């Protein structure tokens, strides 16, 4: 029991990692888009857990808030808007299934090998950082990036409005109007 509690961090890390991986595989494999969205959400949540276990709680908070709370919600909304049981789709997978999988496997092998080789060389373990370090850095050295993100978000808002305005001029028929 003590051993269990002593290594709880590591154990939980392994569990979360495994679950995240399972979720990722499900994203690629599941048929219906809504289920795919759910799998992705679960992956993201487990990833948030991993961040928490690593000690960067603020990033974990951002992960759940922004990714799950904004991005995936928008995604789910869109899936529900568009007709998911689109009869025009001929199956899940494209024509490049086999080359894709083979290529992906090779690529994955190469990357894993690269990662291991990399770790073999760098043995450095320096000090880690805290939220305080992060916010100080963000507002001192990286203040420009900070400001630019505001600009980027503004641009995104304007673009989205433009798309809406433009589309509403052409008449507002969307996929949701079709009922199969």
């Amino acid at each position, binding site marked *: 029991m003590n051993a269990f509690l002593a290594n709880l961090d590591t154990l939980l890390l392994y569990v979360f990692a495994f679950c995240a991986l399972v979720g990722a595989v499900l994203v690629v494999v599941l048929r219906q888009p809504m289920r795919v969205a759910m799998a992705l959400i679960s992956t993201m949540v487990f990833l948030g857990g991993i961040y928490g276990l690593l000690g960067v709680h603020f990033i974990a908070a951002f992960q759940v808030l922004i990714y799950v709370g904004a991005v995936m919600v928008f995604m789910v909304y869109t899936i529900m808007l568009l007709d998911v049981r689109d009869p025009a789709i001929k199956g899940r997978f*494209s024509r*490049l299934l086999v*080359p*894709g999988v083979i*290529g992906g496997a*090779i*690529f994955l092998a*190469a*990357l894993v090998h690269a990662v291991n080789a990399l770790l073999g060389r760098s043995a450095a373990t320096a000090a880690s950082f805290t939220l305080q370090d992060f916010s100080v850095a963000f507002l001192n050295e990286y203040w420009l990036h900070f400001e630019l993100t505001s600009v980027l978000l503004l641009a995104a808002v304007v673009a989205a409005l433009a798309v809406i305005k433009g589309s509403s001029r052409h008449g507002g028929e969307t996929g949701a109007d079709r009922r199969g």
Partner: protein
Amino acid sequence: MNALKLIVLLPLVGFLVNGLIGNRLGKRAVSIIGCGLPLISFAITVALFIQLGASGQPRIEAAYTWAAFGTTTFDIAFYFDRLSAVMTLIVTGVGTLIHIYSIGYMKDDDSYARFFAYLNMFLFFMLMLVLGRSLLVMFVGWEGVGLASYLLIGFWFQDPVNAKAGKKAFITNRVGDAGFLLGIFLLYHALGTLEMDRINAAFLAGPVAVSASLVGICLFIGATGKSAQIPLHVWLPDAMAGPTPVSALIHAATMVTAGVYMIARLNGIYLNAPAASQLVAAIGVATAFFAATIAIAQTDIKKVLAYSTISQLGFMFVALGVGAYGVAVFHLMTHAFFKACLFLGAGSVIHALSGEQDIRKMGGLRKRIPITYWTFLVATAAIAGIPPLAGFWSKDEILWFAFASGSGGSFLVFGIAALTALLTAFYMFRLFWLVFLGPSRMDPDVEHHVHESPITMTGVLVVLAGLSAVGGFISIPHFLEPLLPLPAVQPALKSFQMPLVALSVALGLLGLAGAWYFYGGPAGRTKAIKARFGGLYRLLAGKYFIDEAYEFFLGRPLHWISDHVFLRIGDRALFDGTLHGLAGLARGSAGVLSRVQTGNLHLYALLVLIGSFLCLVWSWAHG
């Protein structure tokens, strides 16, 4: 210290001004600039000439270093000694007179400014030619006068015949220039310098690394082209398509004498090259005789004079070939006087007859254009060798040295030259009779408008006739003796000098008598001769069909090669084929490669995967 540069550059200024803004200046300003600048050059030349007479030292002016690599330099420098002085005086003096003549002759022409610009450009290059110190500067002038000649022969280029004549002149000259260039290369290779005074000194000092005869022959080939000797004489009669002042200035007085000047200048080479000198004399005398025979049968007033020029140039080369360089220059000067007078007189006749050039349609002009008549008579007598006019003195010297010179004179050369002198007198007086005397054979409407030329034209004619009359008393050979020594006369023949003078006079008078007999009398006499020697007459009138022979043996094969080898195989198959092939290759490969662009995002993503994998591998391979 800039006098020589001024002499050369003033005509250039005239060329630029008249050429660029001449059309806007008006004919008066163009005439003043066009004639005034050469006149100033002439004045400066006279001043320098007097100075030269006083000091005796040649004057050298360095103008510009054209190229320098290592220790060798190619300089543009001007050189003024007795020989250059004589040539420059002739070029600027006679040149200015002909410019003044052109004011009247070209009065009604639309391209008045262009004419004077080209004339000034010609003077610039000719002065570079005669004043240049090195063969390089001379060659620039050589080519430049060729260009000016081409532009002026084809001055009325709207008529394709004129343009063709200009082309023929230029191309024939270029053939000769190949030989000239070879000579220059040989000299530079052997001596390391192109400056003519140094070349002469080197050859006179002792044996040189290159055969003097070889160099002499190569340079002479260039002279054959420029001075219209066999076999490159064919351009000169066609060059008569240009305006008459051009024929007078370029194709009688100055440009065609460039070959003579060149050989006289490089006498150091020719004194040591007996083979080359013999060739020069042989070709000179052959050309003289050959051209004289053709001139007998010609019916265009300018063509007669053209062949006469070729013949007289042959005489000059005879003098050069037997070592009498000063005498050749002497004949060059007297020839400039009387030939220019003859050509300008012919121009006056053509002007009076509103463009008629066929001597069969002239006659009876004695009373109607008297000044032209009298000046033409004086010049004709000069060329025929009637004493005491200029032509007699120079031609007699040539005949004497052709006979008696210790370096190449022979009875054969003398004999042919004497026969040619007879023919010269004959055909010149024939021309004179047919143009001016006897009953009028003119077209009636031409006859109505016959008028004497304006003072700008007749004044020049009078001056030139005067020079033809008294020019012989300026003893040029004597003047040039320190520079161009006269050859030693064979002692055994010394006694023949006076009899030979008598013979020359006799030949001239005999020619006059012959022309009087045939052309002064009833027309039947010439018709009888023509009927008896019909074949010979056709041969002479057809100029021995040399142009036709060149066309057949050279022109047609070249044309065939151009068409079949260069055009069809080289240009179309090789070049176009290669380019089309390359384009086809590009098109084909583009067609194949464009199949990547399927528009399918899955494929693009797969390619991204493959690409990043390859990048990973590459970064491994290179550490």
